[in-house]
């Protein structure tokens, strides 16, 4: 696997698109997080209230809430690295390099392994970034730091890792299946932001809708902010959510392999 990963690094190291997309991804997260922080400060100065609470007193970016809030906000932008994965796999098809890699001596499984290593790398990078960002923001914003609270909600980082990893797997599958970058991106956007949300919205059983792939990864990190209006929020990863998500990880790896194995390149 490590050897395949090094091949993949050679492919992306001097690929401008890789750098642009990922710098954009990390920059957007930073910007939005700081934006939310500035907005809350601004509202507090103006004496505005959100549902009768002083915005300055909401501990959005304080330990331990920060891990939940940060990972939820970052999840909005998972489409950015997903677009890179689609570009990466459709490039391999349109440049005929997928075929050439096989001719040169990779098996189809090896090729899948090398793309999985790339996805793993990006997911780890994103998780690491949020860890550092969360730590820094938490240390700045938390007034009185109690060590036992710093890492209380840290499992959400694992949730973020799973969320990105699986979403990128879905992107890989879509890109390989559709073969064309533009079409694959449209399909992925349409499915994850229109089709599945409508379908799951119409299903009134949360149990059943939880079995749809996008809903399954969304369920890992539930919407956190309602807790500041004193509503109950699931503030931990459940075994059931994690189990369904992991099932989808395996399913999409298997489906991707199936396409790779059957297709004439």
């Amino acid at each position, binding site marked *: 696997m490590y050897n395949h990963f090094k*091949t993949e690094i050679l492919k992306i190291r001097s*690929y401008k698109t890789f750098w642009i997309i990922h710098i954009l991804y990390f920059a957007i997260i930073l910007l939005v997080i700081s934006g939310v922080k500035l907005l809350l400060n601004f509202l507090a100065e103006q004496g505005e209230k959100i549902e009768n609470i002083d915005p300055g007193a909401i501990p959005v970016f304080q330990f331990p809430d920060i891990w939940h809030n940060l990972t939820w906000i970052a999840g909005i932008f998972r489409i950015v690295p997903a677009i890179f994965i689609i570009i990466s796999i459709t490039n391999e098809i349109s440049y005929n390099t997928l075929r050439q890699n096989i001719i*040169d001596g990779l098996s189809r499984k090896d090729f899948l392994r090398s793309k999985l290593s790339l996805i793993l790398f990006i997911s780890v990078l994103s998780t690491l970034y949020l860890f550092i960002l969360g730590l820094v923001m938490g240390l700045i914003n938390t007034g009185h730091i109690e060590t036992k609270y710093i890492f209380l909600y840290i499992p959400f980082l694992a949730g973020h890792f799973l969320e990105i990893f699986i979403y990128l797997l879905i992107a890989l599958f879509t890109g390989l299946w559709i073969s064309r970058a533009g079409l694959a991106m449209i399909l992925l956007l349409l499915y994850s932001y229109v089709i599945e949300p409508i379908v799951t919205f119409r299903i009134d059983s949360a149990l059943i809708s939880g079995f749809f792939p996008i809903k399954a990864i969304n369920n890992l990190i539930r919407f956190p902010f309602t807790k500041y209006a004193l509503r109950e929020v699931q503030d931990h990863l459940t075994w059931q959510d994690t189990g369904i998500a992991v099932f989808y990880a395996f399913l999409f790896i298997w489906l991707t392999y199936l396409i790779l194995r059957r297709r004439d390149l």
Partner: protein
Amino acid sequence: MKNIISTDQLTKRYRNITAVNHLDLEIPEHSVFGILGPNGSGKTTTLGMILDVINPTSGTYSWFGNRNKKENRKRIGSILESPAFYPYLSAVSNLKIVARIKNRPYNNIDEVLSLVGLSGRKNDKYKTYSLGMKQRLAIASALLCDPSVLVLDEPTNGLDPQGIAEIRDIIKKLADEKKTVILASHLLDEVQKVCTHFGVLNHGELIYKGNVEEVSRDEHLVEVSTDDNNALLKILNDFPEQLGVKEENGKFNVMLKPSVSVSDFSRYLYEQGIFPTHLLTKRKNLEQQFLEILNQPENV
């Protein structure tokens, strides 16, 4: 002689057409084997199957007498159809990827690049290359890991005459080094110049397999003309030892039976009172052989 590859009833069917039909192909070690055939005869499909990028409908193949596909491909240098590289990477980076896939060190990248004359541009991005340079990089990539077999599909596509001559020299050098080269081409002249063996595919079937030297040995072709071509034509048609007469640009191409020598033919003309103004002995070439094979009624 050992076979470097043998296929057993290899078949590829697409919806309505059979691209390759129960092909039994054996290619001996240390040969330069030319695969000939008109467009759409199944050359690339066959190569695609033995390189594992096209799934056969049925049948099997084995390289080096074993079935370890992945490891075998690492010992083969190959280009299939057009060169395939990452356009945003330099020649060197592209070759590093190939070396990595084949589990080989980077140390002969410079050597193969200079062999194909790309040293001066080795750090430029692939997308800035001309078609000929892309083709050269593909050859360099095929040679990169000192393969024991080369599979080249139309290797001279897009090359200028000088480039074609260089590729020919490279192939000859490989043959001297006792490597096996499998060359698919529709340039018959190329095949005749470099190949030791050849096979002809048509409609996905191997319709002929032979030795390139033998093609030019069997029968001779004589080109002849005189002042009175009408009389000449009559006399040529009466000549019992000929296999065919064709007029071309005011000259006649006469195919002679293998048993007849050119001097026999010359004596016959003299006896008939014909004194040719032009008499040229031609070696029969692969092109004629190829067209003959394709035109035989059972192959049409």
